[in-house]
C-alpha cells in the first residue's frame, strides 16, 4: 500500500521555522557511557517509581533499580553496570524534583540476565506481551511518558480498531524520530505490528509530516507487502500535528470527545521510538535504557543525533557535541514549543527526552506582556477551538467559573496561541493555572457533595 495524504487537517496550528536542517541529515551516533548517570525514578506520567537500590549497591545493565508503584507507573532499569553512588531527591530533566539514582559506571557495561527473546510473538498472548512491555519499563517516548502497558490494556468494553504510530515530529529542531524512522524503520514497523497484535486492531497507520519525504519512503519500504489495512499517512507539516488528538483526527477523522481518551474513539497512538522500544523488549528481551536525542540549537557547537543512555547528564551530552558556544540564554529539554527550560544542566536525560536545545540570549529574551489587543490570532491558531485571549483574561481576573464554562480544560498546552500573540501574553501559563484551579475546585465541590450525601 502506498502512502496517502491524511484525509483531514488540524484546526488552526502555527508554522514556526522548523530549524531541523542542522541535524536532519546526521546519522544517529552512539554516545559513550558518561562517567556518571543520573537516573530519575519519575520519568513517566503517574506514580513515581520506588527506588529498590541503595547507596553502594552494584547494579548490572537492565537490572530494575526502581519499581512501578501503582497501576499507572513504570519500572526503571540501570542503563549500564556500575555502583550506586546515591539515591536522593534532586532536580530532573522535567525541571521538577524526584528521586534520582546516581550510578558510577564500571566500564564493563555488563548486562543482567535478559528476559528470554520471544521470536514468535505472533502466537504470544497479548497479556504476556503487555507484561513484557511493563517489565521493560517502556513509556511514551514522544514526550508525555504515559506508561505503555497501560495504554495497551484498554478496559473491557473498549475495543481498539486503529493503531497510529506517531512519526509526525512537529516540534521544530527535533530530528530524533526522523532519524529513527530512516535508520530503524524495520524495528519501528515490527514494534507497530506487535502493538496491533496486542490490541487486536485491524488498522495500522504510521503518520509522518510531509517535511520528511525520506522517512516516508523508508517506512513505506519497511511496510511493503504488509497484511491488513496499513499504510503511511502523509501529514501536512503544521504544529501541533503530532499532538495525539490532532493526529487521530487527521488520520481517521474521529474526534476524541472533550475530556475523553483516544480509546473512546477506538484509537491508540504510540510514538515511533516507543514502537522501536516495544520491538526490542519483545524480540530481544531488553528493557528501555537508551534513546535517540537530538542535541541542537544555535548555541551547540556541533549539533548531533545521539543514541544515549537514559540518565546521561544533559551537560555531558552537550560536551559530546563540542560544548556550548556564544552567549547561551536558555537550555531546553525537548522542543521549543513544549519543552522545559532547565535551570541546571546536571540533570539526567529521561526516557522522554527527545531533544536538548541551547538557544542564544537573544532568542531567549524575555518580554513584558501587554494588554490583549483582541487581534484574534490565538483564536485562529488554537487547535482545540478555544478563545485563548478570553480565557486568559478570565483567569487573570480569577473568574475560574467562566474559564471552566468556556472549556479551559480542553487546552492541550501546545503553545500555538502564545507563539502568535503580538502582546506576548503568558497564555500558556494562564491556561495551566486555570486548568489546575478549575480541577482543584471541581474536586473540592465533589468532596463537599459526597460529604453532604454521607450526612443524610
Amino acid at each position: 500500500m502506498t502512502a496517502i495524504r491524511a484525509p483531514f487537517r488540524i484546526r488552526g496550528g502555527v508554522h514556526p521555522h522548523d530549524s531541523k536542517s542542522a541535524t536532519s541529515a546526521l546519522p544517529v551516533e552512539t554516545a559513550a557511557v558518561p562517567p556518571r548517570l543520573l537516573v530519575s525514578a519519575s520519568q513517566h506520567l503517574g506514580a513515581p517509581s520506588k527506588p529498590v537500590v541503595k547507596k553502594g549497591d552494584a547494579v548490572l545493565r537492565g537490572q530494575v533499580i526502581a519499581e512501578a508503584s501503582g497501576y499507572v507507573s513504570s519500572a526503571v532499569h540501570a542503563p549500564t553496570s556500575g555502583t550506586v553512588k546515591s539515591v536522593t531527591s534532586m532536580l530532573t530533566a522535567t525541571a521538577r524534583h524526584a528521586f534520582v539514582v546516581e550510578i558510577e559506571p564500571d566500564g564493563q557495561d555488563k548486562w543482567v540476565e535478559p528476559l528470554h527473546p520471544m521470536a514468535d510473538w505472533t502466537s504470544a498472548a497479548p497479556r504476556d506481551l503487555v507484561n513484557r512491555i511493563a517489565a521493560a519499563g517502556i513509556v511514551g517516548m514522544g514526550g508525555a511518558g504515559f506508561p505503555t502497558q497501560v495504554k495497551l490494556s484498554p478496559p473491557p468494553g473498549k475495543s481498539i480498531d486503529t493503531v497510529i504510530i506517531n512519526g509526525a515530529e512537529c516540534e521544530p529542531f527535533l530530528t530524533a524520530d526522523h532519524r529513527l524512522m530512516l535508520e530503524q524503520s524495520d524495528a519501528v514497523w515490527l514494534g507497530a505490528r506487535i502493538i496491533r497484535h496486542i490490541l487486536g486492531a485491524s488498522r495500522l497507520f504510521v503518520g509522518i509530516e510531509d517535511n520528511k519525504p525520506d522517512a516516508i519512503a523508508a517506512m513505506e519500504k519497511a511496510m511493503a507487502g504488509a497484511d491488513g489495512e496499513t499504510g503511511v499517512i502523509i501529514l501536512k507539516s503544521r504544529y501541533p500535528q503530532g499532538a495525539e488528538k490532532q493526529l487521530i483526527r487527521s488520520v481517521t477523522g474521529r474526534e476524541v470527545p472533550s475530556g475523553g481518551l483516544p480509546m473512546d474513539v477506538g484509537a491508540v497512538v504510540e510514538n515511533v521510538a516507543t514502537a522501536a522500544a516495544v520491538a526490542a523488549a519483545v524480540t530481544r528481551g531488553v528493557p528501555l535504557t537508551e534513546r535517540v536525542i537530538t542535541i541542537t540549537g544555535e548555541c551547540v557547537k556541533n549539533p548531533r543525533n545521539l543514541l544515549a543512555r537514559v540518565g546521561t547528564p544533559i551537560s555531558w551530552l552537550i560536551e559530546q557535541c563540542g560544548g556550548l558556544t556564544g552567549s547561551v540564554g536558555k537550555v531546553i529539554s525537548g522542543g521549543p514549543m513544549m519543552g522545559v527550560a532547565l535551570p541546571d544542566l546536571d540533570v539526567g536525560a529521561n526516557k522522554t527526552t527527545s531533544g536538548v536545545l541551547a538557544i542564544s540570549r537573544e532568542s531567549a529574551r524575555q518580554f513584558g506582556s501587554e494588554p490583549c489587543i483582541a487581534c484574534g490570532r490565538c483564536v485562529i491558531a488554537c487547535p482545540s477551538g478555544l478563545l485563548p485571549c478570553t480565557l486568559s483574561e478570565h483567569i487573570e481576573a480569577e473568574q475560574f467559573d467562566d474559564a471552566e464554562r468556556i472549556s479551559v480544560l480542553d487546552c492541550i498546552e501546545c503553545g500555538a496561541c502564545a507563539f502568535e500573540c503580538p502582546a506576548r501574553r503568558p497564555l500558556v501559563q494562564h491556561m495551566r493555572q486555570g486548568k489546575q484551579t478549575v480541577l482543584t475546585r471541581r474536586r473540592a465541590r465533589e468532596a463537599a457533595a459526597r460529604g453532604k450525601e454521607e450526612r443524610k
Partner: protein
Amino acid sequence: MSAPEKTALAVSSSPHAHSGASVRGIMMDVLVAMIPAGIAAFMFFGWNAIRLILVCSATSVLAEWATRRIMKREAAIDDLSAVVTGVLLAFNLPPSLPSWMAAVGAFAAVVIAKQVYGGLGYNVFNPALVGRTVLLISFPVAMTTWTMPSLYCAGMDAVTTATPLGAWKTAWSAGAAPEGFFAAFPLSGLVTGNRPGCLGETSAIALGLGAIYLLLRRCIYWHAPAGFFGAVAVISASLYALDPARNLPPAYHLLSGGLFLGAFFMATDMVTTPVTRSGQLIFGLGCGLLTMVIRRWGGYPEGVSFSILIMNSLTPLINRATRPRVFGTRSKLA
C-alpha cells in the same frame, strides 16, 4: 560548564519560540498601509492634509503621554497606537477644519475613548470615530463644510461644496434629484479620490492598496470588509432596482462616503471588533446594513462612522455567539 554560565540560564514557560509579531509592529503596518491614502489626501487637498495629520497625531501622542503620566500608568506611546488613532482621525475630518478643533477631537479620541477605559486593548469604541463623533456633535457646521479637491481648482481659494452623498440627500430632502449630479461626480473621481469628502476617505484606489498590504501582512482578515461591502452592495442594488430615480446606483454607495476607509481601516480595528472570523463577517454585515439604513432613511447623508460605533458595542455579544466549536464537542457551549 562554568559557574557563571549556569546562573545565567533563563527559565520560563513554554513555548520558547515566538512568531516575532508585536503590537508595535502591527501599528507600524497600519501606518504604512495609510501612506497611499495620505499621499492621495495631499494630492487632492494640499497642505491641509499635512496640517491635520500632524495636529491630530501630535495631539494624540501628547494626550496619551500626559494622561498615562497623570494616571501613574506605564508609558505606552512607543506602541504607536496613539499615532494610528491620530492619523485615522485626521483621515475622518473635512480638509478645512480648524486645527484647534482637530486637536479637541484627538484629545477626545485618546483620553475619553481610550485611556479612560484603561488604554489600548480595553477601549470599547473605535477611538478615532469617537473623536470624529465628538467633533460632529460639537462643531456641526465646520464638520460638514467640504472643499473641492485642489486638482479641480489649483491655486484658488478653497471652494466649499457638498459631498456626493450630501448633495444627493440635500436635494432629495427638498423633494427632487440633484441636477447634474452624475456630471459633477463622475465615478472616476470616486475611484481616484478626486471628489469632496474627508481627507483620507476619498481615494478608493489608495485605500485599496493599503488594504492589500494589511491583508498580506495578516493585520486584517477579509471577513469584516467583505461583510461590509457585501451588505452595502446588496441593499443599495435592491433599492436601486426598486426605484432607480430615488436611489443612487450601488457603485456610488460603495465608492463614496467613508466606506473604503471604514471597511478596511476601522471595521477591522482589532480591539473593537470580534476576535473570530465568523464574528468579523457578522460585524461587517451589521455595519453595511446600518450604513445603508442611515444613508437611505436617517438624518445624515453618511452612515459609516455611526454604524461602526454601534457595531462596536455589539462586539462582546458577537464574540460570545461565534465562539468556535471546541475540539471533541458536538456543538458550541452556551
